[in-house]
């Protein structure tokens, strides 16, 4: 053991690379110490190393010595006097041995080169002499040279990432060694953004995902590639649209009204969202964020590893930003060695959705539906004029008006029955995606670099959607001197995306358009159906031609995101134990968007009051045309700048080689600014003529001499003026964003390790921020955490023959926070001389009272974890249990009006989360040619609202909030949702619901509770992934699956819109084939029948559709048909397993690849989102992650990729 210790110390010496000098002077003063102490002092003060022939030497003790500025010789003479030991100086090594007179030792010189498996020299390899403290390291060319006493006969070579090798010297004087890479490379460190921690000393709950695991999938965005990869991390892809941000939650999140997404940190720099969207927009599972999120512009190929920080101990260091977890991304950095260039390219193909997956009616079924409508004499809603004679209804009309005879009618119907127009084919495309990335890396002793450029091109599955992205990164590490390291990082990206106009919902169009409606005319032109665009004041209806493809053709939405990040990092080591580290970063993102729709569209026709110029009517245009000519253009730009500076002072000291103390004191300031304008809409856009605007004609002066001024009355486009006012409903004025968030923090990290067995960690951080309430701003309330780890496997009692080579117990407790997103200031508006009464004085309105006492939201977390590894790493993994309680959650609460307002944002809510996590990785077979491994991870987040919204009506919550699961109900999960209770069909096949009429006479809230039924959580309570990997010689096959369990979802609506009867051009879901048709059917089916009853509700107690508390219990204007879609009859279990990926890759043997000068080549075939198995049969092919109104969450992807390095 002792020898080992010296080797360890010797290693440190060698590293410091000090040149010896026989003349080195030392000072020493000690009383009653053992000889180890003296040796240590000599080592500390000089460049000498020691080795012993006899390890009893350390038994010498009780030494007292007092010397100033003397040579080592003098000290040794004194110390070893009468000890029975002598010493000898050989080069810069001191040999201690027993015996009176030093015998002349013969010394031999060994030289050699160390190379890697490819024959590339490895610098920095430790070369140690067995059974001695002697050693050296290889130089930049992998060469080493060492003089050793003749009696030693073996060297061993060690280097991180390679297996240690022992070589007999024998008679050889030149030793060339080839190192073999370590097979099971265990990640050595965990990066938290502020610290790099030895994995064996981690006390917190952190999931690490290594680059290799990430690479497998070939995902195009970072959030996408995290699905099912780590415990405690739930990722939901709500849309297959390129650029759509996934919803990411770490251990179910911890806030109600704040942003529930985790904090993203890339190489120590916090990445903010490019546009300050409201927390509700970001959180909602009913909203797609196409604008871009923090990770837009991060190239997955550049990622080395991802660490998910989950518990308080891991995240407390991020203070008030950390309550929802932190995800730390580390990018690749250069390694010492020759330049290496690698190329990674992939091509993939995304299949379009098909009718076979959709459970929709085909033409024949749809005709049958219409036929029944007419047999029952029901007809469609009166305002619809079937001008185009569409569908069965159209054919029937032709028969009735004599255009068709009965045979012609029959022919037309059978034509329609077999038409089966393919709207999914028309609106979706099998799309191609490609991705290329080139990187160069390498370095020498004092410089290491990594450069990369990446290019992605993704076509959307929807037509008219696509995304291009270019990314670049340069990471440079410079060793200015031995103790000064400077790292510079630059990265940038441009992402240009093209989407459809926000008025077009492509999925709904494809889904709900009847297959009896052709996409094209026979001659190949688009088929336009007539729909009402305008109703004149005299009651005449004006129609326009509608085909969604025409709308798509003549409109567009472009979103460009640019980002640019610079960071500089300086590390200065001084006084042996101190390190000063400073990081300055600047990140700038720009989000630019434009959207236009031209006058060629149905959408604009509605605003123009006519479609065809034949329908032009001057009065209508003057009175009702919002956009009398041209289309509409809108645009916006938001710029985000964040600057941060972090200074850390680190003290690291090893005492008696058993106690390791590490202290970090740090200070940080950060500022984030958002600036821009968005949301303005301008009419008169003329796309075809050079993207210009048609300007409105000037308003003429009146000719009437008695009136002076503009003659607005005779102006042609009167209604246009309402565009400029708030009556127009369209906003011509932009909204300006100019926000700033500043924070100032201090923090400290204290870490103590005893004998690699016990680890104690304490973190403390305190923030002040301009977004805190004015009384809280300077209070720098601290968050803290304390955590421990017990490495049981390092205990003496732990038998080394035990199957476990690692078993560690972790525990942590601490607090973290999240910043309130509300203004701490009194805000006024409309300041100015804008009141004639007070013409010479300014007036101003109160806009908002400050939230002067707002505090951050606080989350306390307890975590207990176990890491294990057994059978030499054959089985490894971790268990974690955690309990988090968030208090002071912000909620708008009713307060006494005495405060000046009736509601106030209050730190009042609370919730708790219990998480159970488990992961296991097994290497089942491991041999030279064949290996097989499997992995599984499982997470369960049981969250519960402890104090939520008690009384919905006083909180201005509507029943929709209950139906959508956005109400935080005490005692329920935070994403718990509710449904109406379907009470079967009545004898006419109409749906009925329970408790619509309140008979108890209680409050509205009580009535709401009796009308609604609790369904469960909207988001999965159990989730995770499992996979397996097989390697045989050069082939690797892997498959990964993810699962989400314990949640519910709604089936897509039976048919679109809120009317009771489908229009001839609308399609209906196939379960409608099992609808109620005849009295008595209500015994067998729960699908309502056809009916022309509007089923609108009324608050008149005598009405058939009476509902008490209309407007609260049922939103005004909705009908029982709408309620049916939101009833428990349409709720299904969302539990599913998804086959996330499958890949087959082939490592080209070096014998072949070297012929084409490629060092390393790998070819892979990949598939992702291959299949989904739902446990609830009622889903009938609907993706359980699909949300009403948002289109498809994922689509199958088949790809091919090449990795090469030169």
């Amino acid at each position, binding site marked *: 053991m002792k020898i080992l210790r010296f080797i360890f110390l010797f290693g440190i010496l060698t590293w410091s690379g000090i040149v010896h000098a026989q003349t080195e002077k030392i000072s020493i003063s000690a009383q009653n110490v053992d000889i180890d102490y003296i040796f240590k002092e000599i080592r500390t003060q000089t460049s000498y190393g020691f080795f012993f022939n006899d390890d009893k030497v350390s038994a010498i003790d009780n030494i007292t010595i007092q010397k100033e500025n003397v040579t080592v010789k003098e000290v040794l003479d004194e110390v070893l006097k009468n000890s029975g030991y002598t010493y000898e100086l050989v080069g810069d090594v001191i040999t201690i041995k027993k015996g009176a007179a030093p015998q002349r030792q013969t010394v031999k010189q060994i030289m050699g080169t160390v190379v890697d498996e490819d024959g590339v020299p490895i610098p920095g390899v430790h070369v140690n002499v067995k059974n001695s403290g002697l050693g050296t390291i290889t130089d930049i060319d992998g060469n080493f040279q060492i003089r050793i006493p003749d009696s030693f006969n073996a060297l061993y070579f060690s280097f991180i990432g390679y297996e240690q090798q022992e070589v007999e010297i024998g008679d050889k004087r030149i030793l060339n060694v080839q190192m073999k890479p370590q097979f099971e490379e265990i990640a050595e460190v965990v990066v938290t953004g502020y610290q790099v921690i030895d994995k064996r000393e981690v006390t917190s709950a952190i999931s690490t995902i290594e680059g290799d695991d990430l690479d497998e999938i070939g995902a195009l965005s970072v959030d996408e590639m995290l699905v099912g990869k780590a415990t405690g991390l739930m990722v939901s892809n709500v849309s297959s649209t390129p650029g759509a941000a996934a919803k990411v939650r770490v251990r179910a999140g911890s806030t109600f009204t704040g942003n529930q997404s985790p904090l993203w940190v890339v190489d120590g720099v916090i990445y903010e969202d490019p546009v300050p969207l409201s927390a509700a927009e970001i959180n909602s599972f009913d909203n797609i964020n196409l604008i871009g999120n923090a990770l837009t512009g991060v190239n997955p190929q550049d990622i080395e590893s991802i660490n998910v920080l989950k518990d308080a101990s891991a995240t407390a260091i991020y203070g008030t930003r950390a309550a929802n977890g932190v995800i730390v991304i580390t990018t690749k950095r250069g390694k010492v060695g020759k330049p290496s260039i690698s190329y990674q390219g992939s091509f993939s193909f995304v299949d379009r959705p098909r009718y076979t997956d959709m459970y929709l009616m085909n033409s024949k079924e749809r005709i049958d539906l219409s036929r029944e409508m007419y047999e029952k004499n029901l007809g469609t809603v009166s305002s619809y004029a079937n001008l185009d004679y569409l569908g069965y209804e159209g054919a029937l009309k032709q028969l009735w008006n004599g255009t068709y005879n009965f045979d012609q009618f029959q022919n037309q119907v059978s034509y329609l029955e077999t038409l089966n127009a393919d709207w999914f084919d028309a609106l979706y495309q099998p799309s191609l995606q490609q991705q290329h990335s080139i990187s160069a890396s390498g370095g020498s002793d004092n410089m290491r670099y990594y450069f990369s450029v990446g290019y992605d091109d993704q076509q959307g599955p929807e037509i008219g959607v696509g995304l291009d992205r270019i990314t670049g990164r340069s990471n440079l590490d410079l060793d200015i001197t031995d103790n000064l390291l400077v790292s510079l990082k630059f990265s940038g990206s441009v992402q240009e995306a093209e989407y459809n106009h926000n008025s077009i919902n492509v999925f709904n169009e494809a889904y709900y358009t009847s297959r009896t409606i052709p996409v094209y005319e026979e001659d190949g032109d688009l088929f336009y159906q007539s729909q009402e665009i305008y109703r004149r004041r005299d009651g005449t209806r004006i129609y326009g031609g509608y085909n969604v493809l025409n709308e798509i053709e003549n409109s567009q939405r472009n979103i460009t995101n640019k980002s640019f990040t610079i960071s500089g990092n300086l590390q200065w080591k001084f006084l042996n134990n101190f390190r000063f580290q400073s990081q300055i970063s600047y990140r700038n993102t720009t989000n630019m968007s434009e959207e236009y729709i031209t006058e060629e569209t149905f959408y604009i026709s509605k605003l123009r009051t006519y479609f065809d110029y034949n329908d032009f009517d001057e009065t209508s245009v003057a009175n009702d045309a919002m956009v009398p000519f041209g289309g509409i253009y809108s645009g916006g730009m938001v710029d985000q700048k964040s600057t941060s500076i972090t200074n850390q002072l680190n003290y690291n000291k090893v005492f008696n080689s058993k106690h390791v103390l590490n202290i970090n004191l740090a200070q940080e300031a950060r500022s984030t600014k958002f600036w821009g304008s968005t949301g303005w809409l301008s009419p008169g856009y003329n796309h075809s003529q050079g993207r210009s605007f048609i300007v409105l004609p000037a308003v003429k002066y009146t000719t009437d001499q008695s009136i002076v001024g503009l003659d607005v009355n005779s102006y042609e486009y009167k209604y246009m003026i309402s565009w400029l006012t708030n009556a127009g409903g369209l906003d011509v004025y932009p909204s300006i964003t100019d926000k700033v968030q500043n924070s100032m923090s201090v923090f400290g990290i204290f870490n103590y390790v005893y004998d690699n067995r016990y680890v104690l960690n304490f973190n403390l951080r305190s923030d002040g921020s301009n977004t805190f309430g004015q009384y809280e701003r300077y209070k720098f309330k601290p968050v803290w955490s304390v955590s421990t780890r017990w490495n049981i496997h390092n205990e003496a009692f732990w038998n080394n023959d035990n199957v476990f080579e690692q078993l560690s117990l972790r525990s942590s407790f601490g607090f973290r926070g999240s910043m309130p997103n509300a203004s701490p200031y009194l805000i006024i508006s409309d300041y100015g001389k804008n009141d004639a009464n007070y013409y010479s004085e300014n007036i101003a309105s109160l806009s908002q009272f400050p939230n002067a006492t707002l505090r951050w939201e606080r989350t306390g977390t307890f975590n207990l974890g176990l890491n294990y590894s057994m059978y030499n790493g054959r089985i490894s993994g971790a268990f974690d249990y955690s309990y988090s309680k968030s208090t002071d959650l912000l909620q708008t609460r009713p307060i006494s009006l005495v405060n000046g307002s009736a509601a*106030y944002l209050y730190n009042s809510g609370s919730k708790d989360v219990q998480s159970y996590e488990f992961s296991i990785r097994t290497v089942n077979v491991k041999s030279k040619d064949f290996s097989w491994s499997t992995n599984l991870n499982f997470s369960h987040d049981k969250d519960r609202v402890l104090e939520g919204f008690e009384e919905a009506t*006083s909180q201005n919550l509507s029943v929709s909030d209950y139906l959508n699961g956005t109400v935080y109900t005490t005692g329920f999960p935070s994403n718990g949702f509710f449904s109406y209770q379907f009470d079967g069909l009545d004898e006419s096949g109409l749906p009925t619901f329970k408790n619509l009429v309140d008979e108890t006479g209680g409050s509205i809230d009580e009535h709401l509770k009796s009308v609604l039924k609790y369904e469960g959580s909207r988001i999965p309570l159990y989730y995770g992934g499992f996979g397996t990997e097989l390697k045989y010689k050069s082939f690797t096959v892997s498959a990964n699956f993810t699962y989400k369990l314990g949640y519910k979802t709604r089936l897509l609506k039976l048919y679109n819109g809120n009317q009771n009867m489908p229009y001839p051009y609308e399609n209906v879901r196939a379960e409608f084939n099992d609808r109620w048709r005849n009295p008595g059917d209500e015994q067998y089916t729960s699908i309502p029948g056809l009916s022309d009853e509007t089923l609108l509700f009324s608050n008149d107690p005598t009405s058939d559709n009476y509902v008490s508390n209309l407007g609260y219990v049922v939103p005004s204007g909705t009908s029982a048909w709408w309620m049916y879609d939101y009833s428990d009859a349409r709720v299904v279990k969302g539990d599913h397993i998804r086959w996330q990926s499958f890949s087959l890759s082939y490592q080209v043997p070096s014998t072949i690849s070297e012929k084409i000068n490629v060092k390393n080549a790998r070819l892979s075939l990949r598939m992702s989102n291959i299949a989904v198995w739902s446990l609830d049969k009622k889903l009938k092919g609907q993706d359980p992650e699909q949300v009403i109104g948002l289109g498809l969450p994922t689509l199958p992807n088949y790809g091919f990729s090449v990795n090469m390095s030169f």
Partner: protein
Amino acid sequence: MMGRIDIRYMMFLVLLIIASACTDFLDEVDQDKLVPEKTDHYAALLLKEFNKEYPIFKTIDYMTDNMTEVDYALSDTKVSRKTVYTWQREIEIDEEGDELSSINRAWREIYEDIAITNYVIEQIDDADGEQEEKDYIKGEAYFVRAHSYFNLLNLYGQPFNDETADADLGVPLRTNIAVEQVYYRNTVRECYNQIEEDLTLATELIFNSGIEKSKWHPDVNTCNLLMSRVKLYQKNWEEAIDFATKVISNGSLARMNAANVFVTEDNTEILYSFYTLSPVFTSSSQTVTGYSSSPELYNLYQDEDARKVAFFGINTVGTAEYYITKKYSSDFTELGYGNYRVSEAYLNRAEAYAQLGQTGEAINDVSDLLQRRYSDMSVIEFPEAQAEVLDFILTERRKELCFEDHHRWFDLRRMENRPEIKHVFTLVNSSAQKYGVETYTLLSDDPNYTLPIPLQERENNPLIRNNERLEKLPVKENL
């Protein structure tokens, strides 16, 4: 090499940088919102939120003897104000059980203004601007707060009674910017003390600033006038006289002439003018809502009294005539609908003199006022006995201040034993047929002289004590 001391020094330096950078850095604000910085921002806020959007209890006069219903108007038209007109126990719930959400809104609106004044008082010293300006605005804020609490107290607090004022419930006092979920009601005495304290500060600050502003802002006289009113309400006759005297000696009365607009910038009788948004009555609205000025009030004015024409118009519907007030019309005011006038000081002082038995001084004051109102003083018969003098003065007060601010209702509340008032409500169906007459009575000393705490307050703040009020059932007569 850096020694121990150096490291400490370095850390000290870092801390120093943090501390000095902190304040500015953590005070930065979003630029897409206007955070008041300049003194004028605060002045503008007070002007709009209090002076312009004066939070009057809009149906205040419907409870007084100055208003009566229009008998032919449909019940449906009259129903929205009926709960107040008939002093119902719960004024926010009508006969059909529907909620009248805006009828009892003054509580909330007044407290909003109080909250604003609290912020102004708290923050004005840190604003950019001259010290004088800060003093003035702070003074104005104190005045607004005093006026607001005065209104609140007389709407929702028990009427003043010197013997029980230390126990009678007034309204919650909030004089800081802390936010509490619940508030308790302070006593009537505490409320009056707060009002007087605020007024004293307002007077001092405005006086010391030396600034004179337009009539939209209170001056020292305005503060003194309100103080004399506050003293009068507390039956502190001597001090009421003192403050009224200050006003009178610094101000003057103006002759009223029905041909000219009375409330103007140039009229020296007007000290302070406020309330310019959404008047309680517009000339067209009065009969349309089904209520009008009471003929009894109209008949109190003699023909020689200029106020008869200056204050009233007549709407003729068929053969019936209805009196409507012109206090909210541009014929009467070019400024706001609420005004502090020197005439009130004369009335305050006259009343106080009369209470003290100094009937001569009392009559002198009233006579001074009436001289500016009557074309011929000889038609007036001034009484001599103390009780009659007091009655005479109170009637003059009613005539002079009718339909202004909350005056009549507040005056009724502080009269000896609070008079009994009867209100008649004619039931008219949708085919304009009268089918019944209901008579409601507000009893002498009726607890319904104090308004109920708004429903929302009681809901949000369950600990607040509501005012106990009587159920009001009509004496019904079928037609």
